[in-house]
């Protein structure tokens, strides 16, 4: 007597309190109804093109390519989207859906603040009340984004429970949703949580890979050899990967945050160090101890500082369709500086994890091979944190 919905292999599901079950059912029904509705699709496309600035560029990183001396490197410039990251793709979809569902208030978790800023932005545009939950530690790491969200009219709640980071922000947003459901939609920021979120968020993000495919065919007349993206929950990665799932010649590589290193307890490398578990509404891989207590993870990147990974990634890893590799803080910071100096593009510290792995792998590839890196966000928000990391005082 079971209705297995929203599964990727054994992963996914709806492991949430009964109080929220009707809300996710209602959301699923609304999503299934509107995703094929031409009016909804037109509205969303209009916002993506004329508000968020899609399609985003696929930029040939000529200097980086030349410098590394291997595969040709292209950057998918999600950092050029309005609000500075891929997060806006999903947020616009969910906010439109929330409006259709008659919701007047949205709540969201945020790590680095990019999802919070995108949600606050779209809420301002559409006139929805907006409350953002952010780990207290992250409000300090990303103080600029807190003020940005407030400027956009959102209320930001610093979360002081647990490790005071992204995981705890998700906990608190889920708790808040159980308190007030009838007028509130939870704009989940990644391909995680209970069904239908992993499927729906992926669908809103898959435009990234769709554009990459069209753009690379136009530029090179063939598919890339590899698509590389950073992975926390995994929304920019699944967005970039999805269109290529049925193209086995394209390697799909997710870069997770290894913090101080995979052998150091201070990391957030879920695939390298995690085990299958059930948390935040989904069955997937999680960093945890032998009793199933969720581990207090760490990364310099607030956006990747999460102990789990979306269920579709867990599945893609199990069936060996995608690979997941750890990238440390040091490597990410080095790549952050490298891209800034080589191409004049300051990447988000999250995206710098993908840059780092591309740097490692490109020189070993032939010159006629192609790598596409999903540059998921811009790095302005990280400048102060990187200065701190390097011991530079910039009087923020």
């Amino acid at each position, binding site marked *: *007597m*079971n*209705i297995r*919905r929203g599964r990727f292999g054994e992963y996914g*599901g*709806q*492991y*949430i*309190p*009964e*109080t*929220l*079950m*009707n*809300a996710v059912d209602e959301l699923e029904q609304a999503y299934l109804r509107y995703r094929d509705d031409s009016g909804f699709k037109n509205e969303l496309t209009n916002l993506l093109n004329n508000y968020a600035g899609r399609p985003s560029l696929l930029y040939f990183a000529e200097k980086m390519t030349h410098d590394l001396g291997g595969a040709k490197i292209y950057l998918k410039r999600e950092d050029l989207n309005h609000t500075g990251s891929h997060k806006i793709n999903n947020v616009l979809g969910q906010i439109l859906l929330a409006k259709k569902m008659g919701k007047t208030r949205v709540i969201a978790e945020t790590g680095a603040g990019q999802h919070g800023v995108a949600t606050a932005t779209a809420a301002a545009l559409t006139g929805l009340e907006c409350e953002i939950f952010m780990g207290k530690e992250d409000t300090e790491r990303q103080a600029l984004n807190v003020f940005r969200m407030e400027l956009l009219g959102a209320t930001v709640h610093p979360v002081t*429970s*647990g490790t005071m980071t992204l*995981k*705890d922000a998700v*906990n608190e947003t*889920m*708790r808040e949703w*159980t*308190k*007030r*459901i009838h007028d509130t939609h939870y704009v989940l920021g990644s391909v995680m949580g209970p069904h239908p979120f992993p499927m729906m968020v992926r669908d809103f993000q898959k435009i990234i890979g769709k554009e990459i495919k069209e753009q690379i065919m136009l530029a090179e007349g063939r598919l890339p050899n590899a698509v590389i993206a950073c992975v926390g929950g995994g929304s920019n990665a699944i967005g970039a990967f999805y269109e290529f799932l049925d193209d086995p010649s394209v390697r799909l590589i997710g870069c997770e945050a290894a913090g101080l290193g995979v052998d150091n307890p201070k990391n957030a490398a879920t695939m390298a160090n995690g*085990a*299958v*578990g*059930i*948390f*935040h*509404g989904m069955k997937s891989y*999680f960093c*945890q101890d*032998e*009793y*199933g*207590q*969720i581990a207090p993870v760490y990364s310099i990147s607030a956006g990747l500082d999460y102990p789990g990974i979306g269920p579709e990634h867990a599945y893609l890893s199990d069936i060996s369709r995608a690979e997941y590799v750890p990238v440390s803080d040091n490597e990410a910071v080095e790549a952050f500086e490298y891209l800034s100096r080589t191409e004049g593009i300051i990447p988000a510290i999250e995206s710098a994890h993908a840059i780092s792995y591309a740097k490692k792998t490109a020189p070993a590839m032939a010159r006629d091979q192609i790598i596409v890196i999903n540059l998921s966000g811009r790095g302005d928000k990280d400048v102060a944190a990187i200065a701190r990391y390097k011991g530079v005082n910039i009087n923020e």
Partner: protein
Amino acid sequence: MNRIKKAFENKKAFIAFITGGDPDIETTEKLVIALTEAGADIIEIGIPFSDPIAEGAVIQEASERSLANGCTVDKLFEMVKRVREKVDTPLLFMTYINPVFVYGKEQFMKKCADCGIDGIIVPDLPFEESDELSYICEQHGITQISMIAPTSEERIKMIAENAGGFLYCVSSLGVTGVRSEINTGVSEMIQKVKAVSSVPCAVGFGISTPEQARDMAAVSDGVIIGSAIVRLAAEYGRDCEGPVKKYAREIKYAMENKNLCRK
């Protein structure tokens, strides 16, 4: 006979919740005995979890204290085994699904049965996912307790029809914690259950005063109290046995419609 079933026979059941290992395992063991002596009909022992998303601040903090003091599910199994020799009260584990899943579902239920646990409540395992445990629970004779909430509405029928032991009726929206007012839709919720099932209905979330317990008992088959007891454990620490016992007595008297003896 089934201990849980017996707890609802000819009376309104008083169901007490404590966080296992808060502040330590010895205190939990003493509390199980004290609550039994005070008249608790069922005792729920919470397995502390790092991220209890259905709990309010009181039980979140209790879980943190318990984990910080080194509580593990293995230590709780040992404690239950010891206390089971002294009390016949139905004992339930309240746990999130991950600790059960990671321990090994089969192994977990086997140990539950071995040490004398009667049932299990898993707040993040809704009806749609209940077969994650139902077959294994059945095999080991562990009753899986289902929950309904004020938002359940048309879901109540399918949940009630499949419920075993008793049905945990969540009184209000939100997370666990003491509330000054309880949602007034509780009796309608219970009527919907009674239309399709004879499973006893116990009301939880937010109940703390003897008056609330009496009022909720009047419209249901039992009352679940958690945060109000855990708050006493937080306040009195290792010396909480006395205050918890006194409080539980007041609740029990109120539910039996006896005069509240108060100072």
